[in-house]
C-alpha cells in the first residue's frame, strides 16, 4: 500500500499504521505459537510489571483488556457482550469484561486473533480497576487458574516510600511464584534490558503525542488510541521501541512536510476517558467536517506516566524492581482528584486546548466517577468550555451518536462564541 492511500477518515493512512497491523499480527501469532509449544501463559492487567515477565524465557504475556479493545474496534463488541450476557453476566458490567468473558468461554470464536491461549497464571491489580480483579476471578473459578492480585495503595499525593516498598515486596512474592510455576530462575539482567526497551519506547511515544501541540496538530487522538495496542501488550521488547521510533519519526516528517490530519483545524479538543473504540472512524470524520480535532486524550498517558503528570516517566537505570514499583502509580486511575486535575490542566496549557470532552462511561467506573468534579475544576481553573457526553467504550449498543454530537457541537459553538466575544 502506498503512503498516499486515503482512509475513510479522509486523511492519509500512515506507514506506521500499516506497520502497527503487522507487529500486532506478529505478536498474536507468536503468542499462540508460544502457547502451543508449551510456554507459560500469563494473562495480565495492562499496568502490571510486564518487564518482569521478560526475565523468564518460558513466559508469554496476553492482555485481555487490549484484546477486548481490538475486537470492539472491529465492531465485534456487541456479539461478544451478548454471549456473556446470555451466561447471566450483567449488561452493566464493564464492556471489556463482557467481551472478554464472552470470547473466552466461547473458545475464542468470533475473535480475529482466535482469542487468547488459555492462561497458566492470572495477574491482576487493583490500581487500574479493582473490578478487574473480579473479572479475572471468573477464570480463576471456572478454570482453576491461580490468580495473583497486586495490591497498590491509592494515592492522593506523590507515592510514599512505604507504599513503594510494599509493592516491591509483592514483586518478590510474584517472582517466587513464577519461579515455582515455570521452574525457571528469573534473569534480572533481562528485566533490566526490558526496562531499557520500554524506556526507549516511552521516549518516542512522548515525541509522538507531543505533536498534538503543533498548530494544526500533527496527530489526532484517534491515531494515538490505535497505536496504544503495543504499549499494552509488547512492553519490554525491542520491537516496541523500534515501532514507536518509526511512528514518531514519520509523524515528525509529516509535520515538517505540512501534512496534517485536520488541516483546517479550528477547534482543538481533549478527550477524557477510554477511547470510544466503536466510533473511531465515525467520530473522527464527523468532527473533521466540523473543523474539530481531538488532539489529545488523558487515556493515551495511561501507561508510563506518574501520578499528577501526563508526561511519560523517564527511567534512569536504577534498580529495576524499584522502577517497576514506581511506575505502578500512573496518572489516570489510582490517583486522587487533585492529581488528576493537576495533570490535565498542565496538559491543556501545554498543548493549547480549546475545550474538553469528558466522556462519562458507565462501563468504566474508576475513570468516570470523578469526572463531574474534574469538569467543574477544569472549567474554572483553565477557563475553557467543557462538555460531558455518554459513551460506552466497547459496547456500541449503549451509545447514541446524535445524543453525543448534540453536546459536542454545542461545545464547539460555545468555543466559537467565546472567540467572537473576546
Amino acid at each position, binding site marked *: 500500500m502506498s503512503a498516499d492511500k486515503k482512509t475513510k477518515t479522509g486523511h492519509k493512512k500512515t506507514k506506521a499504521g500499516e506497520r502497527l497491523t503487522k507487529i500486532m499480527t506478529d505478536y498474536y501469532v507468536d503468542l499462540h505459537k508460544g502457547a502451543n509449544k508449551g510456554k507459560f501463559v500469563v494473562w495480565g492487567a495492562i499496568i502490571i510489571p510486564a518487564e518482569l515477565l521478560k526475565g523468564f524465557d518460558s513466559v508469554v504475556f496476553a492482555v485481555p483488556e487490549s484484546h477486548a479493545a481490538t475486537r470492539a474496534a472491529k465492531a465485534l463488541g456487541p456479539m461478544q457482550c451478548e454471549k456473556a450476557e446470555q*451466561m*447471566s*453476566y*450483567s449488561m*452493566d*458490567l*464493564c464492556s471489556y*469484561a463482557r467481551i472478554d468473558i464472552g470470547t473466552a468461554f466461547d473458545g475464542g470464536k468470533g475473535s480475529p486473533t482466535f482469542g487468547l491461549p488459555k492462561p497458566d497464571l492470572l495477574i491482576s491489580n*487493583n490500581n487500574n480497576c*479493582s*473490578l478487574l*480483579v*473480579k*473479572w479475572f*476471578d*471468573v477464570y*480463576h*473459578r*471456572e478454570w482453576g487458574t491461580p490468580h495473583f*492480585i497486586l*495490591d497498590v495503595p491509592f494515592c492522593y499525593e506523590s507515592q510514599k516510600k512505604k507504599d513503594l516498598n510494599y509493592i516491591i515486596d509483592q514483586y518478590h512474592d510474584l517472582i517466587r511464584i513464577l519461579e515455582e510455576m515455570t521452574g525457571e530462575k528469573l534473569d534480572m539482567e533481562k528485566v533490566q534490558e526490558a526496562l531499557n526497551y520500554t524506556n526507549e519506547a516511552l521516549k518516542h511515544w512522548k515525541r509522538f503525542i507531543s505533536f498534538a501541540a503543533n498548530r494544526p496538530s500533527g496527530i489526532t487522538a484517534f491515531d494515538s488510541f490505535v497505536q496504544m495496542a503495543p504499549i499494552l501488550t509488547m512492553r519490554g521488547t525491542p520491537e516496541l521501541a523500534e515501532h514507536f521510533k518509526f511512528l514518531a519519526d514519520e509523524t515528525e516528517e509529516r509535520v515538517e512536510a505540512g501534512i496534517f490530519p485536520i488541516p483546517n483545524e479550528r477547534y482543538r479538543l481533549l478527550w477524557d476517558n477510554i477511547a470510544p473504540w466503536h466510533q473511531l472512524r465515525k467520530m473522527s470524520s464527523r468532527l473533521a467536517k466540523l473543523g474539530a480535532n481531538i488532539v489529545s486524550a488523558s487515556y493515551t498517558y495511561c501507561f508510563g506516566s506518574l501520578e499528577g503528570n501526563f508526561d511519560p516517566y523517564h527511567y534512569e537505570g536504577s534498580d529495576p524492581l524499584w522502577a517497576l514499583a514506581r511506575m505502578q502509580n500512573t496518572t489516570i486511575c489510582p490517583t486522587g482528584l487533585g492529581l488528576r486535575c493537576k495533570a490535565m490542566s498542565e496538559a491543556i496549557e501545554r498543548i493549547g486546548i480549546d475545550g474538553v470532552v469528558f466522556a462519562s462511561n*458507565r*462501563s*468504566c*467506573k474508576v475513570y468516570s466517577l470523578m469526572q463531574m468534579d474534574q469538569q467543574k475544576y477544569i472549567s474554572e481553573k483553565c477557563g475553557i468550555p467543557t462538555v460531558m457526553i455518554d459513551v460506552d467504550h466497547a459496547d456500541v449498543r449503549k451509545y447514541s451518536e446524535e445524543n453525543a454530537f448534540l453536546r459536542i457541537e454545542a461545545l464547539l459553538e460555545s468555543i466559537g462564541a467565546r472567540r467572537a466575544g473576546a
Partner: protein
Amino acid sequence: MNFTEYAQIAQDGYFTPVEGQIQILKSRLQEHDFTPFEADGCVRNVGVILSGILPPPSSISEAIENAGLRVVGNDIASLFRSYSYTPEATGDPGEYYVDFYQNHYPCTTILHSSDRRIDALQDLIGERKAQGFMFIGEKFCEYEYFEIPYLEKLLKDKGVNVLSLEFSIDDDQNIGTFKTRIEAFSELMEE
C-alpha cells in the same frame, strides 16, 4: 421483629454517631417483645437469604416478607458481612483494624477473600436451612455481578432457588415489576 424493621434500625445507624446508635439500640431492646415474626397472611415459612451490598429499599423488604418469605439470614456487606466478626478491643486502634480486616467475614469487595466466600455462603445457607437466595444489586458495574452467574449455577445445582433483583437509585416508584418477580419467586417455591 421482621427484617424490614431490623434493616431500618441498622441503616439508621449508618449516619448516626456511635453514642446515638447505642441509644437507639437500647430503646429498641426495651420496647420490643421479640415474639417471632409472622408476616401478613403468611401461612408458609419459606426461608430466604438476602445478599448484596446494602439492604434492599424497605418497600422491597416488605414485599419480600408479605410474599410469604421469611428472611432467615443475610449476606449483606453492610450488615452480616460487617458485624459477623468483631475483634477484641485492645486499646490499640491499629491492632484492632488489622484484626478486623484479617479476620473479616469473606466479602466480595475484599478481593483476597474471594476463595473463601463461596464456602462461607454455602455454610450460611445450609445452617439457616434457606430454600432461596435473593441477590439485591445496584445496576452498575459492581463486584457481585462477576460472581452471581457462578453462584447461581452452584446454588441451583444444590436445590437452592436464586432470584436477582437489580435496582437503580430511586427505583422505589417502579416497585410493581419487583413485586411480580418476588411473588413469582415465592410461588415457584410453593409446594
